[in-house]
Protein backbone atom coordinates (compact mmCIF):
# COMPACT_ATOMS: atom_id res chain seq x y z
CA UNK A 1 0.00 0.00 0.00
CA UNK A 2 2.78 2.37 0.93
CA UNK A 3 5.10 1.42 -1.93
CA UNK A 4 6.01 4.45 -4.06
CA UNK A 5 3.78 4.84 -7.10
CA UNK A 6 5.13 4.82 -10.62
CA UNK A 7 4.25 8.49 -11.11
CA UNK A 8 6.17 9.44 -7.98
CA UNK A 9 9.27 7.53 -9.12
CA UNK A 10 9.29 9.01 -12.62
CA UNK A 11 8.73 12.42 -11.04
CA UNK A 12 11.84 11.93 -8.94
CA UNK A 13 13.91 10.84 -11.95
CA UNK A 14 12.68 13.82 -13.95
CA UNK A 15 13.55 16.12 -11.02
CA UNK A 16 17.12 14.77 -10.96
CA UNK A 17 17.44 15.11 -14.74
CA UNK A 18 16.22 18.70 -14.54
CA UNK A 19 18.68 19.46 -11.75
CA UNK A 20 21.67 18.06 -13.68
CA UNK A 21 20.55 19.77 -16.89
CA UNK A 22 20.08 23.03 -14.98
CA UNK A 23 23.60 22.89 -13.54
CA UNK A 24 25.12 21.97 -16.94
CA UNK A 25 23.35 24.88 -18.65
CA UNK A 26 24.36 27.19 -15.80
CA UNK A 27 28.06 26.25 -16.05
CA UNK A 28 28.07 26.64 -19.84
CA UNK A 29 26.42 30.08 -19.66
CA UNK A 30 28.70 31.25 -16.82
CA UNK A 31 31.89 30.14 -18.60
CA UNK A 32 30.81 31.92 -21.76
CA UNK A 33 30.09 35.01 -19.65
CA UNK A 34 33.64 35.05 -18.22
CA UNK A 35 35.21 34.68 -21.67
CA UNK A 36 33.03 37.40 -23.22
CA UNK A 37 33.65 39.66 -20.19
CA UNK A 38 37.39 39.20 -20.63
CA UNK A 39 37.16 40.37 -24.25
CA UNK A 40 34.71 43.15 -23.38
CA UNK A 41 36.62 44.42 -20.34
CA UNK A 42 39.71 45.10 -22.41
CA UNK A 43 37.67 47.71 -24.30
CA UNK A 44 36.82 49.58 -21.06
CA UNK A 45 39.14 52.42 -20.15
CA UNK A 46 38.47 54.41 -16.98
CA UNK A 47 40.93 57.14 -17.97
CA UNK A 48 38.36 58.61 -20.34
CA UNK A 49 36.00 59.13 -17.37
CA UNK A 50 33.20 56.99 -15.93
CA UNK A 51 30.44 58.61 -18.04
CA UNK A 52 32.39 58.15 -21.24
CA UNK A 53 33.27 54.57 -20.23
CA UNK A 54 29.61 53.64 -19.62
CA UNK A 55 28.48 55.33 -22.86
CA UNK A 56 31.17 53.46 -24.77
CA UNK A 57 30.23 50.18 -23.06
CA UNK A 58 26.57 50.50 -24.05
CA UNK A 59 27.65 51.07 -27.65
CA UNK A 60 29.87 47.97 -27.89
CA UNK A 61 28.16 44.70 -28.99
CA UNK A 62 30.57 42.42 -27.09
CA UNK A 63 29.81 44.30 -23.85
CA UNK A 64 26.07 43.99 -24.42
CA UNK A 65 26.47 40.28 -25.21
CA UNK A 66 28.36 39.88 -21.91
CA UNK A 67 25.54 41.57 -19.97
CA UNK A 68 22.91 39.46 -21.76
CA UNK A 69 24.75 36.25 -20.82
CA UNK A 70 25.19 37.53 -17.27
CA UNK A 71 21.44 38.12 -17.01
CA UNK A 72 20.63 34.62 -18.35
CA UNK A 73 23.04 33.13 -15.79
CA UNK A 74 21.27 35.14 -13.07
CA UNK A 75 17.84 33.74 -13.99
CA UNK A 76 19.11 30.13 -14.09
CA UNK A 77 20.90 30.66 -10.79
CA UNK A 78 17.75 31.87 -9.02
CA UNK A 79 15.91 28.68 -9.95
CA UNK A 80 18.81 26.59 -8.60
CA UNK A 81 19.25 28.62 -5.40
CA UNK A 82 15.55 28.36 -4.53
CA UNK A 83 15.94 24.87 -3.08
CA UNK A 84 19.41 24.92 -1.50
CA UNK A 85 21.42 26.39 1.41
CA UNK A 86 23.45 29.37 0.15
CA UNK A 87 26.59 28.16 1.94
CA UNK A 88 26.31 24.85 0.03
CA UNK A 89 24.81 25.83 -3.33
CA UNK A 90 27.14 28.75 -3.94
CA UNK A 91 30.40 26.73 -3.67
CA UNK A 92 29.02 24.24 -6.20
CA UNK A 93 29.47 27.03 -8.75
CA UNK A 94 33.21 26.32 -8.36
CA UNK A 95 32.83 23.85 -11.23
CA UNK A 96 32.90 27.01 -13.34
CA UNK A 97 36.51 27.58 -12.20
CA UNK A 98 37.77 24.49 -13.96
CA UNK A 99 36.20 25.51 -17.27
CA UNK A 100 37.27 29.15 -16.79
CA UNK A 101 40.88 28.13 -16.11
CA UNK A 102 40.85 25.97 -19.22
CA UNK A 103 39.60 28.93 -21.28
CA UNK A 104 42.32 31.18 -19.78
CA UNK A 105 44.98 28.77 -21.03
CA UNK A 106 43.39 27.82 -24.36
CA UNK A 107 41.92 31.15 -25.48
CA UNK A 108 44.13 33.74 -23.80
CA UNK A 109 47.37 31.71 -23.64
CA UNK A 110 47.96 32.51 -19.98
CA UNK A 111 50.84 30.56 -18.39
CA UNK A 112 50.13 28.60 -15.20
CA UNK A 113 53.04 28.64 -12.72
CA UNK A 114 53.35 25.83 -10.12
CA UNK A 115 52.27 28.26 -7.36
CA UNK A 116 49.16 29.23 -9.30
CA UNK A 117 48.23 25.60 -9.95
CA UNK A 118 48.82 24.75 -6.27
CA UNK A 119 46.64 27.71 -5.25
CA UNK A 120 43.79 26.61 -7.52
CA UNK A 121 44.01 23.07 -6.13
CA UNK A 122 43.86 24.34 -2.53
CA UNK A 123 40.84 26.49 -3.46
CA UNK A 124 39.17 23.49 -5.11
CA UNK A 125 39.78 21.33 -2.03
CA UNK A 126 38.36 24.08 0.18
CA UNK A 127 35.30 24.37 -2.03
CA UNK A 128 34.69 20.61 -1.91
CA UNK A 129 34.82 20.75 1.91
CA UNK A 130 32.49 23.76 1.98
CA UNK A 131 29.93 22.19 -0.31
CA UNK A 132 29.97 18.75 1.33
CA UNK A 133 29.04 20.07 4.78
CA UNK A 134 25.27 19.79 5.21
CA UNK A 135 25.34 21.97 8.29
CA UNK A 136 23.98 21.28 11.75
CA UNK A 137 20.27 20.56 11.92
CA UNK A 138 18.38 23.53 13.31
CA UNK A 139 16.51 22.62 16.49
CA UNK A 140 12.84 23.56 16.55
CA UNK A 141 12.95 25.99 19.50
CA UNK A 142 15.72 27.99 17.84
CA UNK A 143 14.17 28.16 14.39
Amino acid at each position, binding site marked *: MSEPGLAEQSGRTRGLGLAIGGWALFIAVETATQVVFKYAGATLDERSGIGHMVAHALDTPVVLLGFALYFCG*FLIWLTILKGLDLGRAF*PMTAMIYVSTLASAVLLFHEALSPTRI*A*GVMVIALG*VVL*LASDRGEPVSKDEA
Partner: protein
Amino acid sequence: MGLISWLLFALTVMLDVFGQTAFKLGLDRIPDGSPVAFWRAVAASPWVIAGFLGYCVEAVSWMYVLGHAPLSIVGPMAALSYVGAVLTGRLFLGERPRARRWLGAGLVTLGAGLVGASLV
Protein backbone atom coordinates in the same frame (compact mmCIF):
# COMPACT_ATOMS: atom_id res chain seq x y z
CA MET B 1 47.61 44.35 -12.23
CA GLY B 2 47.15 47.90 -10.93
CA LEU B 3 45.62 49.33 -7.77
CA ILE B 4 42.32 50.14 -9.49
CA SER B 5 41.99 46.51 -10.58
CA TRP B 6 42.58 45.22 -7.05
CA LEU B 7 40.12 47.73 -5.53
CA LEU B 8 37.47 46.82 -8.10
CA PHE B 9 38.21 43.14 -7.48
CA ALA B 10 37.46 43.68 -3.75
CA LEU B 11 34.30 45.59 -4.67
CA THR B 12 33.23 42.75 -6.97
CA VAL B 13 33.64 40.12 -4.25
CA MET B 14 31.76 42.21 -1.67
CA LEU B 15 28.89 42.95 -4.06
CA ASP B 16 28.72 39.26 -4.99
CA VAL B 17 28.38 38.25 -1.34
CA PHE B 18 25.78 40.97 -0.78
CA GLY B 19 23.84 39.91 -3.88
CA GLN B 20 23.84 36.18 -3.05
CA THR B 21 22.76 36.86 0.53
CA ALA B 22 20.01 39.20 -0.63
CA PHE B 23 18.77 36.67 -3.25
CA LYS B 24 18.58 33.95 -0.62
CA LEU B 25 16.79 36.22 1.87
CA GLY B 26 14.28 37.10 -0.85
CA LEU B 27 13.83 33.53 -2.13
CA ASP B 28 13.31 32.19 1.41
CA ARG B 29 10.29 34.49 1.70
CA ILE B 30 8.66 33.20 -1.49
CA PRO B 31 6.27 30.29 -0.93
CA ASP B 32 6.32 27.29 -3.26
CA GLY B 33 3.87 27.72 -6.08
CA SER B 34 3.41 27.78 -9.82
CA PRO B 35 6.29 29.08 -12.00
CA VAL B 36 4.26 32.17 -12.89
CA ALA B 37 3.61 32.97 -9.22
CA PHE B 38 7.29 32.29 -8.43
CA TRP B 39 8.70 34.70 -11.06
CA ARG B 40 6.08 37.32 -10.22
CA ALA B 41 7.12 37.13 -6.56
CA VAL B 42 10.81 37.27 -7.58
CA ALA B 43 10.24 40.46 -9.57
CA ALA B 44 8.38 42.03 -6.63
CA SER B 45 10.84 41.00 -3.89
CA PRO B 46 12.76 44.00 -2.45
CA TRP B 47 15.67 41.68 -1.50
CA VAL B 48 15.97 40.21 -4.99
CA ILE B 49 15.76 43.70 -6.53
CA ALA B 50 18.43 45.03 -4.14
CA GLY B 51 20.68 42.07 -4.94
CA PHE B 52 20.07 42.57 -8.65
CA LEU B 53 21.08 46.25 -8.50
CA GLY B 54 24.28 45.16 -6.71
CA TYR B 55 24.75 42.57 -9.46
CA CYS B 56 24.55 45.29 -12.13
CA VAL B 57 27.33 47.34 -10.53
CA GLU B 58 29.29 44.15 -9.92
CA ALA B 59 29.05 43.22 -13.62
CA VAL B 60 30.69 46.47 -14.74
CA SER B 61 33.33 46.26 -12.02
CA TRP B 62 34.11 42.61 -12.85
CA MET B 63 34.25 43.31 -16.57
CA TYR B 64 36.87 45.99 -15.93
CA VAL B 65 38.92 43.68 -13.68
CA LEU B 66 38.85 40.84 -16.20
CA GLY B 67 39.88 43.20 -18.97
CA HIS B 68 42.92 44.34 -17.00
CA ALA B 69 44.07 41.21 -15.14
CA PRO B 70 44.87 37.60 -16.07
CA LEU B 71 41.74 35.42 -16.03
CA SER B 72 43.74 32.62 -14.38
CA ILE B 73 44.45 34.95 -11.41
CA VAL B 74 41.20 36.78 -10.68
CA GLY B 75 38.99 33.87 -11.82
CA PRO B 76 40.08 31.46 -9.08
CA MET B 77 40.50 34.29 -6.55
CA ALA B 78 36.83 35.20 -6.95
CA ALA B 79 36.26 32.05 -4.84
CA LEU B 80 36.81 34.38 -1.87
CA SER B 81 33.13 35.24 -2.20
CA TYR B 82 32.36 31.67 -0.99
CA VAL B 83 34.10 32.54 2.26
CA GLY B 84 31.93 35.64 2.52
CA ALA B 85 28.83 33.52 1.80
CA VAL B 86 29.65 31.12 4.64
CA LEU B 87 29.93 34.13 6.97
CA THR B 88 26.70 35.81 5.85
CA GLY B 89 24.93 32.43 5.82
CA ARG B 90 25.90 32.02 9.47
CA LEU B 91 25.15 35.64 10.44
CA PHE B 92 21.99 36.46 8.50
CA LEU B 93 20.44 33.27 7.10
CA GLY B 94 20.42 31.04 10.16
CA GLU B 95 22.68 28.46 8.47
CA ARG B 96 24.68 26.25 10.81
CA PRO B 97 28.08 25.50 9.24
CA ARG B 98 30.07 22.70 10.82
CA ALA B 99 33.85 22.57 11.26
CA ARG B 100 34.23 21.14 7.75
CA ARG B 101 32.68 24.22 6.12
CA TRP B 102 34.90 26.57 8.15
CA LEU B 103 37.96 24.50 7.23
CA GLY B 104 36.91 24.74 3.59
CA ALA B 105 36.57 28.53 3.93
CA GLY B 106 40.09 28.67 5.40
CA LEU B 107 41.53 26.60 2.54
CA VAL B 108 39.82 28.77 -0.08
CA THR B 109 41.38 31.84 1.54
CA LEU B 110 44.81 30.18 1.63
CA GLY B 111 44.50 29.06 -2.01
CA ALA B 112 43.39 32.53 -3.12
CA GLY B 113 46.47 33.93 -1.37
CA LEU B 114 48.69 31.47 -3.27
CA VAL B 115 47.09 32.33 -6.60
CA GLY B 116 47.53 36.06 -5.90
CA ALA B 117 51.14 35.48 -4.86
CA SER B 118 51.83 33.67 -8.14
CA LEU B 119 51.40 37.01 -9.93
CA VAL B 120 54.64 38.36 -8.46
